[in-house]
């Protein structure tokens, strides 16, 4: 049995009712727990781009990716975990703050190059963007002030360079196990 690892899967989906349902159903069937899922419009009208992060062994991730690719509403999909890619997450963090602690919190926010987007007599809302580690570190730093609310966006990922997994016109040739080169042709069915 291979060790579990984090898999980042990027997909282009048709923007149709029920599409998330279909995707989630396939992932559930293979026993994956989705640790994050982010979806929104993309550069092509009628298509959405989704990034989801799951934990599991390579073979199962490969199988899930292939099963998802079979859905009519999945235009392209790739597990980019073995590519060079950028990941960003955004979080909104509401922290207790009074005149005595506000300055210290603002210093921390500066160090993390985060922003304060709301101030009230008892609290601040911090907006932070970065990889998950950065968000986690900032949370660790402000935790003792009293964190009231955290909302994290989930991971957004994009392969580096000109041609990437999510690109609606490009072809990706690599699959995590190195086999099934024909996947390269299969993913190339975007109308975008």
């Amino acid at each position, binding site marked *: 049995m291979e060790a579990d690892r984090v898999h980042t899967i990027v997909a282009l989906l048709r923007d149709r009712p029920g599409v998330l*349902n279909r995707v989630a159903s396939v992932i559930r069937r293979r026993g994956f727990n989705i640790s994050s899922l982010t979806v929104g419009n993309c550069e092509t009208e009628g*298509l959405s781009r989704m990034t989801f992060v799951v934990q599991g062994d390579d073979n199962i991730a490969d*199988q899930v990716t292939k099963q998802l690719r*079979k859905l*009519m509403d999945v*235009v392209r999909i790739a597990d980019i975990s073995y590519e060079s890619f950028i990941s960003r997450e955004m979080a909104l963090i509401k922290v207790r703050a009074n005149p005595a602690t506000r300055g210290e919190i603002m210093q921390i926010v500066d160090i993390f190059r985060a922003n304060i987007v709301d101030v009230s007599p008892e609290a601040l809302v911090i907006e932070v963007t970065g990889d998950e580690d950065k968000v986690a570190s900032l949370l660790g730093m402000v935790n003792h002030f009293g964190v009231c609310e955290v909302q994290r966006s989930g991971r957004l990922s994009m392969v580096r360079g000109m041609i990437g997994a999510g690109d609606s016109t490009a072809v990706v040739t690599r699959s995590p196990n190195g*086999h*099934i080169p*024909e996947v390269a042709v*299969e993913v190339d069915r975007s109308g975008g």
Partner: protein
Amino acid sequence: MKMNGSQMMCEALLREGVDAVFGIPGGAILPFYQTLPEFPKLRHILVRHEQGATHAADGYFRASGRVGVAIGTSGPGATNMLSGIACALTDSVPMVCITGQVARGAIGTDAFQETDTIGVSMPVVKHSYQIMHAVDVPRVVREAFYIARNGRPGPVLIDFPKDVQTEIGEFVWPEEPVFDTDYRPIMDAQTSDLRQAAQLIAQAQRPVILSGHGVILAGASDEVQQLAEKTQIPVITTLLGISGIRSSHPLNLGMPGMHGLASASIAINEADLLIAVGMRFDDRVTGRLSAFAPHAKVIHIDIDPAEISKNVKATVGIVGDAKRVLRQLMPLVTPASHGDWIATIERLKKNHPLYVPDEGDKLFPQHVIQAISDVTDGHAVLVTGVGQHQMWAAHHYNFKERGLFISSGGQGTMGYEVPAAMGAAVARPDKQVWSICGDGGFQMTMYELATCAENNIPAKYAIINNNNLGMVKQWQDIFYKQDYVATKYTKNPDFVKLADAFGILGLRCDSRSKLLDVVKKANAHPGPVLVDFVVESSENVYPMIPAGQSIAELMEDPRIKKANTSGSKGR
């Protein structure tokens, strides 16, 4: 042309070449039904249950290659179809299911007979649509048939709200299926993969071909046979691959696996190359994966990329249509003889025959299948249910034509045999259709005999009646110390009287001496027939490899050893 949604649906079905549909009406599909008389070319066969409609559509396709259509109403109508849809998905059978739905405004309000049909069917369909505007009907039907047929075939569901059925719009028929994204299954292999495959074939000393349902679906039987003959490689057929090559072909080794022929299972175990075509290494074929084909490299050809290396790691995985890939591969392989290997195979076949009991006038299930095989001369369409009778049918019918074996493989849907045979008989009036039924499965769907009687659908139903849920009982025999919990039917109906009640010919046979006459009489009868073959109930299916086990745990019929004590070493 202006039409309402129902007229558009009928018109679109006709344009897709549909000549018969199986269904049963209800409130939410009624506007569609009331339109049917305007389209007399669309033959509607009124079934008794929506599950029957789906299995009939399934059998209709498997017997003819023409996509079957099943129709039901909303709510329970749709949920009754799920077993048939799941069965079709697992066995890669194209099908279009049309379900009524409550009016658009009532969707999501828990209206009468409202079920979230799209939601409940999602895991068992290849794709589904809910039509929200009548003008979308032609496009959706065009896409649905295209998706059902192409790539790895499968069922597509169209949910059709009641008020869309009456909405008026302009009928515009798309000449080609229009997708807002491109759906193009891979059909052809890449040259580098073909070369690699040809090289593996040239190097192999002990190769076997594993031929599955995909070979029949792709119409690739000729190509498999040509490859086998050119390279002298034996062909093993999975359950659904049976009749992909004629039973008596010298290179045909038959079915492997849990109840496969010992020779086929042993050949896989000794093989150094598996050429798997249109099959998916189901657990009933492989047993314990870690012990499966331990010496073999694997060439896996399948239309579905997700099947490559799913269960058994492929040395070379080729995604494509079986027929086209084999045609591409053929010129690259060199003729071979594999003399030693063929001799080994011949020895295996000789040393591991199937056992057929011979105990005077006692009627055994194997006798029934053999008699039907003889009387129909191996040319009937054979439809089976699921269980012991299915395995005996797989073992003992001598198929002389291709694509004649129709069975619920992946899902093992008991009760499949009654409506599927009905669908097959509707699709192929030129063929004799025999349904091999278990007494258990038969009682799950026997209501469709009324449909056969009403429409004079001449399927012949052979109940292999052992008054047991035989396969489950067999497991209790072997794994549960003959503790028969809930497997004995102590009060089965009188099946002959039942046939009479349905208005069809009923016959009974309980002895070997009467067998041939009864089968001949049934076969010659022009209408539907039910024959109650009362067989020895203690008979079990051998060989058997218990679930999750390997060839080392292969159990052959204990009676073979008695009869053959001084025979071969076997294994």
